[in-house]
């Protein structure tokens, strides 16, 4: 706190309560409202954020307390026994002796020797309640012995078990035996109903499922994770759009959206199709597999559902739908192109015709940019193959293998707008403004 620093500089006495406050020359920022507690240095206190904890975790006054001066402390090498041991082994250790009185009581660590209570059954009980087609009595006996020895550590038990059984099977057998025993030994069923074993019985199939799911999630590759996240975001967006439309009390047809989603891959979690006979969307099955057509259609539908909207708002929504499938960079390029052409980004006189024209212009600019990218890509590829470079092209899924025939291009290469291209050991040209554009090959790359 600034106050104590100032006092220190001026040589004034500090507050009487404080013990030795360690002073550092560098002052640290601290809240004026909180006084630093005594007993710990200012910097240590600042580590906690400079704020006192809600509940005092350590009794601060104990930290620098010195032992009372009248005690005489000595350390002696004395024998001891532990109640945790079954034999009467006597060991020796150093003991802190105060005023010639050795401490009493059990060995201080004996209380940590906890063990699990394993039920023991008689042969009679086994005959009556515990027989099982898959398990013999010997195996069950051995299982219980292991449980006793290894403190219910099923992984270890499974490892040592003479007959190879999975962990889940062992657990299942152990817990069902216990349940049967409890039920058998109880005076009335109500007594044991609250026992944890009865309330939540071990379910072997669920356990197997759970472990399988866990291992699947763990072993998911980065790629898969990204795809899953993308799909979930997409589904969320679509359900939100649908919710907005549904709020206007009309069902929305999601046929087009589903078509787009299916092509985009994978399961769409949680989205339900609600076909409506009064569909207002054009039922074009020929819609291209990108999501943009679905976006337009659904935006139009949701606009209609509103029953009233401002033309500017409508245009904004359609522009958003058009830009939904492209990245921010492309959007900026579209806007730049519009400005270069002298067109207002938001029309000053938004009549119906003007808005329609504006939207069409934006779409055409997107097509233009797309074509430009395609052309660049093809040109760079063309040059790379003319020079006969077989630089390995890693696993972009849309690439074809050029190993055999370097000069056959083939017509159907669907170029996505944001396709990345990586090449080990390839030297980049002047860094292009869109880093996602494929790099041009130089002759020096050979």
């Amino acid at each position, binding site marked *: 706190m600034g106050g104590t620093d100032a006092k220190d500089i001026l040589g004034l006495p500090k507050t009487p309560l404080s013990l030795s406050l360690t002073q550092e020359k560098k002052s640290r920022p601290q809240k004026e409202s909180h006084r630093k507690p005594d007993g710990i240095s200012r910097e240590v206190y600042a580590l906690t954020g400079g704020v006192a904890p809600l509940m005092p975790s350590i009794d601060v006054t104990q930290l620098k307390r010195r032992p009372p001066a009248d005690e005489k402390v000595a350390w002696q090498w004395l024998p001891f026994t532990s109640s945790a041991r079954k034999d009467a082994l006597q060991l020796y250790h150093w003991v802190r002796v105060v005023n010639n009185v050795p401490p009493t009581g059990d060995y201080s660590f004996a209380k940590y020797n906890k063990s699990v209570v394993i039920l023991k059954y008689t042969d009679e009980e086994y005959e009556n309640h515990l027989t099982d087609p898959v398990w013999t009595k010997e195996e069950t006996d051995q299982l219980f012995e292991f449980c006793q020895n290894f403190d219910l550590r099923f992984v270890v038990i499974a490892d040592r078990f003479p007959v190879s059984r999975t962990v889940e099977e062992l657990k299942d057998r152990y817990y069902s035996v216990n349940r049967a025993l409890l039920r058998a030994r109880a005076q009335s069923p109500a007594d044991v109903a609250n026992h944890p074993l009865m309330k939540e019985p071990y379910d072997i199939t669920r356990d197997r499922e759970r472990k399988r799911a866990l291992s699947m999630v763990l072993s998911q590759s980065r790629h898969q994770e990204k795809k899953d996240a993308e799909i979930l975001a997409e589904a969320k967006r679509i359900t939100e759009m649908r919710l907005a439309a549904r709020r206007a*009390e009309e069902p929305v047809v999601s046929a087009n959206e589903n078509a787009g989603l299916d092509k985009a891959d994978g399961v769409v979690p949680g989205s339900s199709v609600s076909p409506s006979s*009064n569909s*207002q969307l054009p039922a074009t099955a020929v819609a291209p597999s990108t999501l943009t057509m679905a976006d337009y259609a659904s935006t139009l539908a949701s*606009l*209609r559902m*509103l*029953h*009233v*909207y*401002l*033309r*500017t708002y*409508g245009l904004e929504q359609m522009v958003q739908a058009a830009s939904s499938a492209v990245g921010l960079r492309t959007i900026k390029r579209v806007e730049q*192109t*519009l400005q270069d*052409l*002298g*067109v*207002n980004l938001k*029309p*000053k*006189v*938004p*009549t*119906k*015709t*003007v808005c329609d*024209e*504006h939207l*069409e*212009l934006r779409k*055409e*600019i997107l*097509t*233009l940019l797309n*074509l*430009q990218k*395609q*052309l660049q890509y*093809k*040109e760079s590829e*063309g040059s790379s*193959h*003319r020079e006969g470079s077989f630089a390995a092209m890693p696993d972009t899924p849309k690439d074809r293998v050029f190993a055999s025939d370097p*000069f*056959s*291009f083939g*017509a159907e290469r669907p170029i996505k707008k944001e396709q990345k291209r990586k090449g080990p050991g390839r030297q980049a040209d002047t860094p292009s403004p869109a880093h996602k554009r494929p790099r041009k090959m130089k002759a020096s790359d050979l």
Partner: protein
Amino acid sequence: MESDMEVMSETDASPPQKLRMFGMGRTIDDREDESGRRRIKDVEVYLPIVCGSVAFFLGKRATEYRTHKWTVYVRGATNEDLGVVIKRVIFHLHPSFKNPTRVVDSPPFALSECGWGEFKIDITVFLHTDVCEKKLELSHVLKLNPENEYGSVPKSIKIPVVAESYNEIVFPDPFESFLTRVYNHPAVHISNLPDGFNLPPTGVADTYHQLRNGDTKDHPLSQWFLTFSEADELFTLTAARQKVQADIAKLKRQLIMVDGQPEGL
């Protein structure tokens, strides 16, 4: 699709009318909403409006807190009466005004005040119940000081600072009753109206808007209103589209060439 039907429109002002079926195959939406009203699909009714403000500097009469007298309004783009569609407009002024929520229940939907500051005014537009039950939100930034490239022009008390923006309220698939009521009205524009749409020519529409003469053609501020023409913008847009289309064609040719080239080798 029934061929002959009797339509009961539920508005207070219009008696039941019989509509001839449209020959174009337009369907009247058979779904009935809560009050049994029907919508006409693929017809769009839109209302061109201008939302703006006119501000006069008070000159000698200005005090510290009242330097300008301004009026904020929602008017028809061609100064027609909006009362046929709009029921009420609420202007939400800056909280420093007393009773900042100003309600205007009849056309012309305008509000005048004196003040010193520029701020964003939120405008809520309520439509007649037979039009739509939803409200519409707009906003307008009040401008008091003239902007000028050459520096601020000395404020004249005779020439106000005008800020206006054009917009259109769109009603997709309008209610049948609404459509019949307004289709004659000069403030309202309809697109995609089917050819077979036949209504008694005089109809209710005329009398309705004679009852309320809330247009702004003779409004004291009308001389300052701007006119909005789509011609310029359309011109720029069409020119731009042509250029872009030409570029696209050029690129497509280039792409074909690039594709063709390696195969030729």
